[in-house]
């Protein structure tokens, strides 16, 4: 992501960013195995709520979209759909090596090999799968990024929408979901 080294934000934006950083509601889209390490992160042992993070029921309410693992083409359509439903500012976190470079499924006909080709990823967490400690650490980094105004993926998506859309169409042929076909 391109980031401006100089802080160009206005004062009220800085205040807003403070609030945004310390209250992150996540849309936890269980796209893959990484989802199994989310419950321990959320629940009593690691307790994500200390950081002010919590799960939300629908994409409209959420601030951060967690892509927890490999993405099949079928899921990617729905992920894009969910991402576009979210309200600005919004952030994307990619979990595990599958979102980074395809990971163990690099030669699979069904899964993506890199997520930032289709969605603006603010932060990647390496590992297969990332441990809860790594996830907590990553969220800490995300909070700092938002506070400093560096997590600008959503703006990048708006400005380079054509590029993203071109990539999405190349891989998916059709982005919007028509679910009736299989019934």
């Amino acid at each position, binding site marked *: 992501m391109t980031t401006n080294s100089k802080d160009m934000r206005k004062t009220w934006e800085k205040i*807003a960013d403070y*609030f*945004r950083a*310390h*209250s992150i*509601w996540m849309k936890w889209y269980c796209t893959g195995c990484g989802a199994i390490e989310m419950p321990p992160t959320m*629940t*009593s*042992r690691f*307790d994500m*709520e*200390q950081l*002010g993070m919590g799960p*939300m*029921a*629908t*994409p*409209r*309410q*959420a*601030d951060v979209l967690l892509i927890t693992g490999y993405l099949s083409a079928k899921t990617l359509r729905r992920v894009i759909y969910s991402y576009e439903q*979210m*309200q*600005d*500012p919004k952030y994307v976190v990619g979990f595990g090596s599958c979102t980074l470079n395809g990971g163990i499924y690099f030669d699979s006909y069904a899964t993506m090999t890199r997520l930032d080709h289709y969605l603006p990823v603010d932060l990647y967490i390496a590992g297969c799968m990332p441990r809860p400690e790594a996830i907590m650490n990553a969220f800490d980094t995300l909070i700092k990024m938002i506070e400093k105004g560096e997590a600008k993926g959503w703006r990048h998506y708006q400005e380079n929408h054509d590029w993203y859309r071109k990539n999405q169409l190349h891989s998916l042929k059709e982005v919007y979901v028509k679910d009736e076909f299989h019934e």
Partner: protein
Amino acid sequence: MNLMNFVYAFLLLLAAFVFQTTLTGINRKVVARLQRRRGPRFYQQFIDIFKALSKGSTTHGWVFDFGVVMALGGIMATAIFIPFGPLKAVPAMDNIFIIAYVLAVGMLGMAMSASGSGNPWASIGVSRALTNMLAYDIPFMMVVFGLIFAFDTSSLSGLAAIQREGGFLGWHVIRFPLGGIVAMISLQGMLGKKPFDSFIAPAEIASGPMVEYGGRHLGMLFLLHEFSTFIEVSLIVHLFFGGGATVAAFLVKYALIYTFLNIVSNVLPRFKIDQAVTFFYKVPLALAVVQTFLIIVVGMGVA
């Protein structure tokens, strides 16, 4: 009614908001301890609300937008009528009927807005919320009518003052224990706490009416929730727990009741909506009938 009233009302509203939001934050911490974890900071709820208000949001038509504003306005207007302990912004207007009517404006606005989003989950949520309202309101209102009949007043502060005459034992929850139980159960329903939260059940209908709200709209909804919680808990404090001779007494009672309900709600699963209605029409309604009978015919606890 003059300018001072409005300033006073505004300050009371602000106090109510700060108090209730802090209390919600503390309660999140209490619940976290129940669930064996540390929990968020106590001011987390403020950050959440301001964050939501700082975000952008999409509209789903003017009904959607107008409904939220109407709901928030209606609820805030109701909150003005609620006595804040001994303090009252608009004297002589703390009548239960007025509160019930103005409260309905807020509820309707909410229902209108949620249906205006066009999402089927929201419509299901709204219909469940209204069903739920019907279920808890009948036993609750029955008990309240009993009280009004017994003491010839429908003013909240009036009812509270009557209770305070007898000290601790004069509280209606002691004098009319059945009514007190009904009121507490109904309050659980009013607050939308488990087991009566099927209208926002995330696992069933994806948070129901709130499904399409995001950003500013959701922030307003959170504000609305804080105010309506304030109204509902205050109602019970005034009706059954002797109100407050001082602001501090009022707030302590309020906090204890709210925390108690919150803890109860976190060790219970939720009813399905039909089961909730059946439950309300079985246990609380029966208790309410008995209580009203005792008040009106026997006159027990009135003298």
